């Protein structure tokens, strides 16, 4: 019930928003997203309260609910979709992250002037879609929510975006749609190959890894496991985004309003990473193992390519968008290392996968903080051009402090959460993919370069008198920044709770993979 409430409460709130007066919409949205966030926390603390918490894994999820929904039989074609929701460590962190960021996004959108009812309603529908993706325990339900999320995001960019919003919105839509078509094909493939009677995660976890055989492919043949992996992966790769499928992201981010960028980078990219880990790695481990070396190379390219492109951006938001490409590369690296075939100790694989998962969470908070910071500046100055500012730290010391915290977290400074995740990924992945890790690790130099160079050009130096009138953050503007900063600091100093939360589900995954490797 709890998960059902978390998934559908935002939708109900969205409907209420549409019916309410304009001025009430933001309050409705704030209250409901706040309640949903608290409920998502209860997913965690409700288990902690039991004394000896078991946070569940894919075969034994917590808060599980399973109701038959669709059951169509057309001859040999049997389509069975269950309304199955559940949570384990992997999804719980994402649900909490989405709860937090959706709430902060509402706070950050307080001053939205254009059609506020529709805006907040769409934000809430988006939250439902994303929550559904993370909570679904049925593959068809998963892809259903996956597609739901597209509509509000498309409209949010298309209506409230910047000058090139229509181009950006369409680009986002078409990229994602084409990608998810492949994923859908992959889902059909794995569904029918594993009996075609059950689309639950537990079913795939048990049956899919033993799939063998191969498929004809343009005259040659490709192993079934790899085909499933690759088809499923295309949609996720677009979402993550993985080079070379990443070019929708800078446009979407640049055009989207602040809060939408926050959600886009903070949780929507994580849907791709979540899909990669939960579905590709979980249900097609053989394929993942075959593909891992390539994935490692792509991960390193992601890190360096994104960082390089960030270096030469003139628009702050575009720079941060590219930095997301770079940082999501660490997630890919961790996953690749966990799957790569090698002699390395299973514990290194688990470290890599845990690092990748932690990176999903920390990148969500860090990049959200970066986008909120830019949003504060943009709301006042109506420009995000790095070079037109100069010395504004003098007028905005509080923003400078908070923005700097976000930048240092992003460049992996110890004491802040980004370091924990990156260090964990590197220590794990070096065991199986040393060369890719060396290249990816060079990203830490580039990241420091572009972020601090940006700060130096905008905030340091003598004040450009054109910006003499700028005022520092208000309490309302600082609230999301401080809240995220505290989360980043806490995870950076004491990451054990979140690691404990992740361990059962990732351990199950790594163990099932290493059992396969022995065969």
């Amino acid at each position, binding site marked *: 019930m709890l998960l059902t409430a978390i998934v559908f409460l935002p939708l109900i709130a969205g409907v209420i928003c549409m019916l309410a007066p304009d001025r009430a919409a933001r309050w409705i949205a704030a209250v409901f997203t706040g309640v949903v966030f608290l409920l998502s926390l209860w997913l965690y603390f409700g288990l902690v309260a039991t004394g000896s918490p078991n946070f569940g894994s894919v075969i034994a999820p917590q808060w599980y609910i399973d109701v038959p929904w669709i059951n169509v039989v057309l001859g040999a074609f049997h389509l069975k979709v269950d309304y199955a929701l559940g949570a384990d460590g992997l999804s719980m962190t994402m649900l909490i992250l989405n709860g937090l960021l959706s709430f902060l996004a509402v706070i950050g959108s307080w001053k939205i002037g254009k059609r506020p009812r529709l805006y907040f309603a769409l934000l809430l529908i988006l939250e439902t879609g994303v929550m559904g993706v993370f909570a679904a325990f049925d593959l068809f339900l998963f892809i259903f929510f996956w*597609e739901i999320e*597209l*509509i509000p995001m498309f409209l949010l960019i298309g*209506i409230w975006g910047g000058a090139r919003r229509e181009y950006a*919105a*369409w*680009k986002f839509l*078409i*990229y994602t749609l*084409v990608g998810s*078509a*492949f994923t*859908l*094909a992959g889902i059909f*493939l794995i569904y*029918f*190959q594993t009996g075609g009677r059950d689309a639950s995660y537990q079913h795939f976890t048990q049956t899919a890894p033993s799939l063998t055989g191969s*498929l004809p*492919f343009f005259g040659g043949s490709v192993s079934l496991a790899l*085909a499933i992996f690759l088809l499923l992966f295309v949609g996720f790769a677009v979402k993550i985004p993985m080079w070379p499928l*990443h*070019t929708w992201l800078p446009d979407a981010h640049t055009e989207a309003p602040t809060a939408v960028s926050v959600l886009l980078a903070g949780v929507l990219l994580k849907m791709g990473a979540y899909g990669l880990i939960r579905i590709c790695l979980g249900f097609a481990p053989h394929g993942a193992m075959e593909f891992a070396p390539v994935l490692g190379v792509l991960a390193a390219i992601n890190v360096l390519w994104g960082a*390089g*492109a960030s*270096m*030469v951006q003139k628009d702050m938001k575009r720079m941060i968008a590219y930095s997301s490409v770079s940082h999501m590369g660490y997630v890919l690296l961790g996953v690749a290392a966990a799957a790569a075939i090698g002699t390395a*100790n299973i*514990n*290194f694989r*688990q470290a890599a996968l845990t690092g990748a998962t932690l990176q999903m969470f920390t990148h969500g908070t860090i990049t959200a903080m970066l986008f909120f910071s830019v949003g504060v500046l943009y709301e006042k100055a109506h420009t995000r051009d790095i070079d037109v500012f100069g010395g504004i*730290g*003098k007028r905005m*010391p509080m923003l400078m402090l908070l923005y700097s915290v976000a930048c240092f977290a992003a460049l992996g*400074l*110890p004491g802040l959460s980004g*370091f*924990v995740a990156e*260090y964990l990924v*590197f*220590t794990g992945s*070096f065991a199986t993919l*040393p060369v890719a890790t060396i290249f990816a*690790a060079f990203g*830490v*130099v580039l990241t*420091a370069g572009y972020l*601090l160079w940006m700060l*130096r050009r905008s905030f*340091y*130096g003598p*004040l450009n008198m054109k910006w*003499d*009138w700028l005022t*520092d953050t208000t309490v309302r503007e600082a609230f999301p920044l401080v809240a995220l900063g505290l989360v980043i600091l806490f995870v950076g100093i*004491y*990451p*054990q709770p979140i*690691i*404990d939360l992740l*361990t059962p589900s990732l351990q199950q995954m790594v163990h099932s993979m290493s059992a396969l490797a022995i065969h």
Partner: protein
Amino acid sequence: MSPVEFVPVIPLLPLVAMVIIFLVTRPLDIAAQRRAGLRPTGVSGGHNVGGATAGHEQAETHGSGADHDEHDDHGGGHGHGGVTTFWGLAGAVVAVVAMVGAFGLALAIFFQFLGSPALQKSGYTVHLWNWFSFGPLHYVIDFRVDTLTAIMLIVVTGVSMLVHLYSIGYMAGDLGFSRFFMELALFTVSMLILVLGANILVLFIGWELVGLSSYLLIGFWFDAAPPPAGSDLPYPPPAALKAFVTTRVGDFAMLIGILMLFVTTGTFTFTTLNTPATYQHIDQFTVTVAMILIFCGAVGKSAQFPLHVWLPDAMAGPTPVSALIHAATMVAAGVYLVARFFPLYSQVAGPQSLEVVGWIGSFTAIFAAVIALAQNDIKKVLAYSTISQLGYMFVGLAVAPTDATGIFHLFTHAFFKALLFLGSGSVIHAVAGNQDMRKMGGLAKYMPITAVTFLVATLSISGFPLFSGFFSKDAIIGEAFTYGQANGNFWFYGLTLFTAFLTAFYMFRLFFMTFGGRGGAFGGFWGNERQYRGEAHPHESTWTMTVPLILLAFPSALVGFWSINSGFANFLTAGIQTYDNPLFDPLTYVGVAVALLGIGLAWLVYGLEVVPARVFTSNPVGRAAYTVMINKFYVDEFYGWVIQYIALGLSHGAELFDTYIIDGIVNGSATSVQRIGDATRRTETGVLQNYGAAIFGGALIIALAVFIATGAFVH
């Protein structure tokens, strides 16, 4: 309960001070400054900064002068004209008290170690908290005190305490006064974490955090105006960026080294890593490479060639920062790192690893000393001298059988170099912010305490007999000779010996140009107003600044005697006696002669001025050499070129590839889709069903196409 059990309190004290300043005294300080009209209100939001505050008179009168809200007039004397508020001072006092407590505890721990050979051998580990574990792979936050750490604790807390005290005077009146103490405390905490770490994880955390504090403090005057074109004054904003990114290049290599050790041994813990038995089944080559990579981190942090470029620029920070971070403690962290892994370097890894350390160290020592000869900025000379002395320390680690030789020089250097920097700060303060020695001279009469203490430190760094630098530096030169006898490689000996001559020369050049000059008392040592070439009105500094100078002069002169009868080496290595006493080694006389030669030459040229300085540059060879030296061998220009054309070039390439190749393909194929979309588009009407239908319909069609194409239906 013994003192060592309280060791986590040492970093906790400055941490608490930092939090108190951040949460309590700094907000109150800022509020008080606003009330006094020293700082714009910020919340008023108008164009008239600060104008909204009642009762502020002088800020309005100089128009844009009110914008000097973080510091007043960087170029012309820090702090003069500003006021330190009660709460600013309160925060500083909290920080100083915390540092006194930390230093007291560090001393207690040190004496506990000194009195207990058993403790020297075993060390003391304290477990703080877990990050996480994966099977046998533990990521834990542990502290460990051994003899090396006990010495580093003394150095860090002692110098930091004195620098805190000194800064009350030096930073007085700066509007960022509270922020300065907060960042200074942050640095101290970070440095203590670095030296207390029981594993590489904790060390690396401290290592990166000192990098952060260094960045913040170099960029302390973040709103400073750029220096006039043509001047070589450092400029804080780019200097901070350069320091962080340059050291990060070293950190990157260090991280790879750490990863190599971790995946081969499965541990971060120093005690396990430093046990040769751990490497029974591990290829020696792997360890050698890992140790060289870890040394790269030290190259960055300790500003060794080729990553030395950031340190001279780091002089853009306030001078107390240069003393604490960029002379005494943080830059020595690289030396500490190598010493921390010394058993690995000397016993497990191949000899190549320490050879690399020796070559980098000895080359850097002479390279930086040569550049220092031509500098006229007093802090730049000291910066290059720091780089050079750090090179000595690395040579000491590379050539000696234990780490005691290198670490002893770290120990003595911390005191005399901190004293030199604080003394130079006192001078800069006295001459209204000028750092150019050509506009100094004869200052001894104006500021006798500064001059005497400065002379002590100068004698010490030059290796004048019985001063502490003599004991530590000549031991390194002596060990380099012994090393040469054993290995046939006398390069380290030759380079360090010649550098000793250069060091004595440029340091006394600095002393004469600043405090003395022709016609001063004692043959030009003690100058007076006739030798003064500047326009300001020099004066002795306030007691909070002179007391630290005096307190540092004693160790600068005396700590060397600890090495007699291998006292220091015995302590550090817990009984494995190592290096010979330089006092009774004939080689020592070579070092002393070389140092005296350098001092003498500097005296002739800059003290007595019987040989004019222009003899060096009056011939074409000298002029060419001088041009190369003053331009620091064009290393900065080379890096600028690499960044400009290679790094940014590749970055532009990546972006162009995205825009024209990837998006070209995407847009090309999307145009046709978009045409269909255009026909049915209802963006502004927002009819969700249409989008839903289109999206699901489209997705399903594509999915089926892919599905059939792959023949997935065929089982």
